[in-house]
């Protein structure tokens, strides 16, 4: 194990919950809460997976994803996107932008953990 | 004079005089008509033998031409008075028709 997950999220309580869940599964969880600088952080950290919130201050998750996919190095990076807005259009746009998995808040803990595991395995 | 709003109620003496001359000019033909229709009251042969003596032709001729001369003289005098005021035409328009 020892896989590296980067969590991009601005809600402190949600950060704490996801960190708790993934750490318990043996993931190394780093967090980042500002949308504007998220892409740089991802480039620098080179995580095995990114959990990305849809609504972030500075830059939306969708824009971050689009920017990532434009970079050849990150075209296959697994990205799990979380959204609280629950609109069908958001999902479509995210899939078009190349999201690996799209989940609506509030999520089930098991689902998140399973999705992260599956996505990393699939990528390998 | 009356470019904006109502014309002034009282005119300066000169334009007042001109207005009255215009009035006279307009009344002149009516005066002429009256004077020239006066001979209608003179006796004629149709009035029968009881009528007063008929008017002599010389008197009649003198009367008609005297009226004529009076009218011409008045018209000439009014014209020469009004000619000196350039806005004669406009002034006439300002009066009610």
């Amino acid at each position, binding site marked *: 194990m020892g896989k590296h997950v980067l969590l991009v999220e601005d809600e402190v309580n949600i950060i704490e919950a996801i960190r708790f*869940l993934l750490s318990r599964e043996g993931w190394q969880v780093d967090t980042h809460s500002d949308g504007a600088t998220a892409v740089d952080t991802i480039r620098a950290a080179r995580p095995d997976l990114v959990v990305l919130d849809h609504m972030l201050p500075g830059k939306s998750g969708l824009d971050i994803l689009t920017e990532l996919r434009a970079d050849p190095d990150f075209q296959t990076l697994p990205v799990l996107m979380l959204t609280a807005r629950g609109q069908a259009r958001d999902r479509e746009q995210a899939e078009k932008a190349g999201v690996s998995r799209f989940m609506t808040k509030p999520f089930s803990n098991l689902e998140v953990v399973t999705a992260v595991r599956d996505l990393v395995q699939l990528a390998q | 004079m009356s470019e904006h709003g109502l014309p002034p109620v009282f005119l300066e003496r000169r334009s007042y005089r001109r207005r009255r001359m215009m009035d006279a000019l307009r009344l002149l*033909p009516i005066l002429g008509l009256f004077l020239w229709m006066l001979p209608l009251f003179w006796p004629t042969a149709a009035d029968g033998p009881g009528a007063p003596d008929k008017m002599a032709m010389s008197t009649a*001729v003198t009367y008609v031409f005297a009226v004529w001369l009076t009218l011409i003289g008045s018209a000439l005098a009014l014209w020469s008075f009004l000619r000196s005021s350039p806005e004669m035409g406009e002034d006439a328009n300002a009066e009610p028709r």
Partner: protein
Amino acid sequence: MASVNLLVGVSLIYVTFLFAIAFFAERAAAKGRGAWLRSPLVYTLSLSIYCTAWTFYGAVGYAARSGMEFVTIYLGPSLVMIGWWWALRKLVRVGRVQRATSVADLISSRYGKSNLLAIVVTVMAVIGVTPYIALQLQSVTLSLSIFSAPDAGGEVDQAIAAFWVAFGLAIFTVLFGTRNLNANERHDGVVIAIAVEAVVKLIALLAVGIFVVWGIAGGIAPMMERIDASPIGEWDMDRSRWVALTALSAAAFLALPRMFQVMVVENEDERHLQIASWAFPLYLMLMSLFVVPIAVIGLDLMPAGSNPDLFVLTVPLAEGQVGLATLSFLGGFSSATSMVIVATLALSTMVSNHVVMPVWLSARAEGAQVSGDVRNVVIMARRASILMIIGLGYFYYRFSGGGAALAAIGLISFVGVAQFLPAMFGGIFWRGATRWGALAGLVVGFAIWVFCSLLPSFGPGVVLSVGIFENGLLGIGWLRPQALFGIEGIDPTVHAVAWSLVLNTTAFIAVSLVTFPGPLERLQGAQFVNVFDHSTQARGWEAARATSEDLMVMTQRILGADEAQTLFRAEAKRQGLDGSLPEPTQGFLQNLERELAASVGAATAHAMISQLVGGASVSVQDLMAVADESAQILEYSNQLEAKSHELTRTAGKLREANQKLTALSVQKDAFLSQISHELRTPMTSIRSFSEILRDTEGMGQVEKTRYASIIHGEAIRLTRLLDDLLDLSVLENGQVSLRYEAGRLSDLLEQSIVTAQAASTRSMDIRRRHVNEALVLTTDLDRLGQVFINLITNAQKYCDADDPELVISVQQDGDELSVAFRDNGTPIPDAARSVIFEKFARIGDQDGSGAGLGLAICREIMARLGGDITHVPAAQGNTFVVHLPRRAALAAQ
């Protein structure tokens, strides 16, 4: 005794002299040196064509027969001229503005450019004036015969003399009357010739008169005695004739085609009319002055049975004054010729413009843009008309045999043309006059004139049988030509004048009242009646579709190449264009139409331009109708335009509404997304941690407590969010009920601060000025407190200064009370300031404790309370100002 040959020679020299004067006048005018040709004196003298041979010879004859009655013929015009302000002024202005070329043109123009009306007027004028022209020919030949009579062997064939006179007049009129096609440029040669003739006839009559009074009678006093001793020595006047003839002469003076020609068409400057107003009556008076003396002396000296119409000639001849007689002959000759020339000119304009041209144009199917030179056609039409009219006069003279007394023919003619008066002056002074009214009046008046005046003048048994005179038309008693409706005993002339004019006017008014004028008619009516107030613009053309080239081509054909080019170049220059073709603006088209109207008449010019401008190929058969139609089309297209404007407006409104709905829908979507986000975010934490608590075994107590308190906190956040949403919803829908009560501002602030500080963990230094807060408010104190609490809480939450500080200051400023909350934190960025009062607008809120509804709620509350809340930018810190209406605040005791 003067031989006829000598007389003919003198006449020829005189005529040559007139030709020369007319020729040089035209030359001078063409070179622009003709200002003197257009002086008031010339204008006044040209009016003297009113005094024809009827005056020169006939007045003396009239006086010899009926005493002073002759003078009525001059009293009427004198009154009209002296009273120029009443009627003539308007007639001249209308004629000039509309560029009327004749009485027919004026009437046609007034009644919607109706060519039918123009034709009727033209026909009536020709019928009415032809006997008058014959009268002039007769007088010239009669006067010639006087000279020849004692000369055995020198007998003059009157018919041949009349023919040569007519021929000479026709030549003169053709030469000087049709040189300039555009009647607006007027006939300088003709006018100067008739002015000279006016002087000649006045001098001749005065000379004979002076000779009679001082040469024969021996002074004024003996003359007066001889007058009183003569057969006409007593005043013996038919009163009805005195009135009727004065009125008739006034009417005829206004309505005679030749008078319209000199008075209106040839008028150069309206001010000349004012001078003529006294000068022309003076002329008339001088012409009448010696009539009675000449008549009296004539009756005295001449043998019984001699023609009193020729006393002016025969008295000097009898006294051996051959020179004076010759001068007198020239005076009579002048009177006759000037009348014939101008009358023919006026009539030929009517005939060619209203009869010949429309007929010719409709015979050519191509329309106005025919190939060939219309100008030549117009000139030929004019010349043909002149020959035709003089020819008619000549044949009338031959046919009638020249028997009737001069005065009788003149009066009949006067009654005929007086029939134009109701239509003319009704049209100028009454907007309600219609085409059908004018037509009805003209036809009725004309019919009565023919039946009661013209036909009876030939005598019983000539045209009308004796039976009709005695028993009436078709044996109906009240249709007797000299006793209409069975009313007998009226003088025949008075009878004809009264009935024709009364019934004419009645028909005109009655039919006008019941008919409805066409659009063009109404426009023209307004223009005529209000000629002094209106701009001189006639209704306009839709200029865009006429090309200048087409107009140029057409104008050249009518006005001739030189004049057309001058006109167009002048207009181009006026428009500031370089070339010779101007833009076809509306003003130019109207101007052009009037220019053309002067040559071919208003109706034809209107039809021609409408063909070019309208674009559609209207057939020329419709020429007469086109004028009216185009006005109607204009009206219709205006309506369409108005409708399309309305549709555009409606569509615009719909688009606007649609945009609003779309915007609202977008707003609603955004709002739902926001709500969803705000609700789901705390729910996520709650669900996640509750699952953690449920599924995780062997969790430490510290962790359990921590996670449970997160759940608790998020649940509270959720509740508060729902509360805020409901609160905002109530406020926005206006369903909130306000509880007004009075309270001290200082107390309210105190409570708010306490409440806010209790809920906050951060401490903040709050400063106040209690003195200013000593106010009593009447408002919803709870709601206002809510606003205060919100602002204080916000300041506590967001103030990022090291020593957070809040200054609350109260100010009374005029009509309002304001409470300012100023903190010392980082100012809100400009970009964000505009949205801080919007729902879910959170600036730099990272802890997630607020839903971004607080300020939105504050704004709604203040709106309900009749106040306002604003954010005031400052270099340091943020200031929120709560404005309260003045009525809410009462000064404390």
